[in-house]
């Protein structure tokens, strides 16, 4: 049987608050579990010790259990009266203050004015009539037009003078050129063309000569460089061959020495064997 009561059941058993059947069950369980029994005995001891705490003697103090005393407050101290009274008093103070400082509030559509003291009327200055303004604009425009007109006239005069001057100087130059051209004959033209052809021919010759000399120099340099390169290559090849030949010679010498050693050892071995025999 794996019955194991929980703490609640055990404590109820300790205080005798269990049903008789349940109580018997616990007693059986405690009989079978001495450890649990010891624990219950300890708890029981704690209970016994607790019972040593005695009650304090005390006499009930006089507690007044009557209706709570309501102190009748005058109506002006009641909340429902005090708040409107406060608002009214504030308004009154505001009005008196406004009267003393001469506060004036004016409201017109789109404008609120708050002022203090006496009202000062604004000084009305005589203003211009519409006609006067029109005349002033008209006279200003007219004077501007006159100034502009004078300026334009002056500019125009200067421009005309400059054009005239240029025309005079250019026409005299053109006239001179036309005269020179017309004075030149067909022979002179031929001579001029012939001279021009000769000049061109000479220029071409010079150019060709110059370019052939350059090419010649370049090819010469190229050939020299190539021969130098070949010579260098040949030298390196020879050095390489020389090194290989040297190595072959060394190997041959080594081989020779080894062969000699082997032969010497063979000879000495045969000599000793013959002596023994």
């Amino acid at each position, binding site marked *: 049987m794996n019955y194991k009561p929980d*703490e*609640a*059941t*055990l*404590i*109820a058993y300790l*205080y005798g*608050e269990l049903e008789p059947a349940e109580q018997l069950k616990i007693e059986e369980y405690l009989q079978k579990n001495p450890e649990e029994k010891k624990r219950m005995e*300890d*708890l029981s*001891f*704690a*209970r*016994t*010790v*607790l*019972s*040593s*705490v*005695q*009650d*304090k*003697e*005390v*006499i*009930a*103090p*006089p*507690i007044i*259990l*009557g209706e709570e005393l309501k102190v009748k407050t005058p109506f002006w101290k009641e909340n429902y009266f005090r708040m409107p009274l406060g608002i009214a008093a504030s308004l009154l103070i505001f009005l008196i203050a406004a009267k003393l400082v001469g506060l004036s509030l004016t409201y017109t559509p789109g404008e609120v004015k708050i002022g203090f003291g006496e009202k000062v009327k604004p000084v009305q200055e005589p203003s211009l009539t519409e006609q006067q303004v029109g005349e002033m604009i008209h006279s200003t425009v007219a004077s501007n037009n006159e100034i502009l007109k004078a300026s334009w006239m002056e500019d125009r005069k200067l421009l005309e003078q400059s054009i005239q001057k240029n025309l005079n100087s250019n026409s005299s130059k053109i006239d001179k050129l036309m005269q020179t051209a017309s004075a030149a004959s067909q022979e002179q033209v031929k001579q001029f063309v012939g001279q021009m052809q000769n000049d061109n021919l000479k220029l071409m010759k010079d150019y060709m000569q110059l370019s052939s000399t350059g090419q010649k120099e370049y090819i010469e340099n190229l050939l020299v460089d190539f021969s130098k390169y070949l010579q260098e290559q040949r030298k390196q090849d020879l050095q390489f061959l020389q090194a290989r030949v040297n190595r072959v010679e060394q190997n041959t010498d080594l081989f020779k020495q080894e062969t000699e050693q082997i032969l010497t050892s063979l000879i000495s071995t045969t000599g000793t064997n013959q002596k023994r025999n």
Partner: protein
Amino acid sequence: MMHSDVLIVRAREGDKHAQGKLVEVWYKRIYNFSYKFFYDHDMAMEASQKTFISMHRNIAYLQDAARFRSWLYTIAVNCCREELRKRKSDKSVSLHDLGPGEHEDSYHWEKSGTRGENPERVLRQNELSDLLQECLMQLSEEQREVVIMKEYEGMKFREIAEALNLSENTVKSRMYYGLEALKRILERRKITQETIGYEL
């Protein structure tokens, strides 16, 4: 008991005399519950007075007269917790600094009655009582409430559960662990069956 029920019914109907009588009947119990909870006379007085003022204000709402006891202890526990919170926030007085020896300045109605017993035995009994009270103070608040209600107020687990608004199993569990903790505290203080046997 019938007499008590009648008192409760009358008090609920607003009978001041019945209410006064209830205070008279229950004051010692509530004071002792509070005293064991605080181990402090002034705090116990304060909590007791508040409990009965609250009882007076709310007794009209008590539905079932048979539940008066658990209802009254609910008020008492709440007053004690409130008082404890107030004291903790004040931090002016430590519970352990205040022994019960400060009764000298108490009012005449608070003075304990003298007993016609052997003074030496009374003294020893008082010392033991104080020692155990100190042990009780080492329990947690929840365990202390349950242990006091069960051990000193003789309430059933069902009543305690009702007063504390907890399940019966929770109350039993708190009681079990409370007693276990108390046993350990007693052992630490070398209070065993052998050392204390002669006192009990």
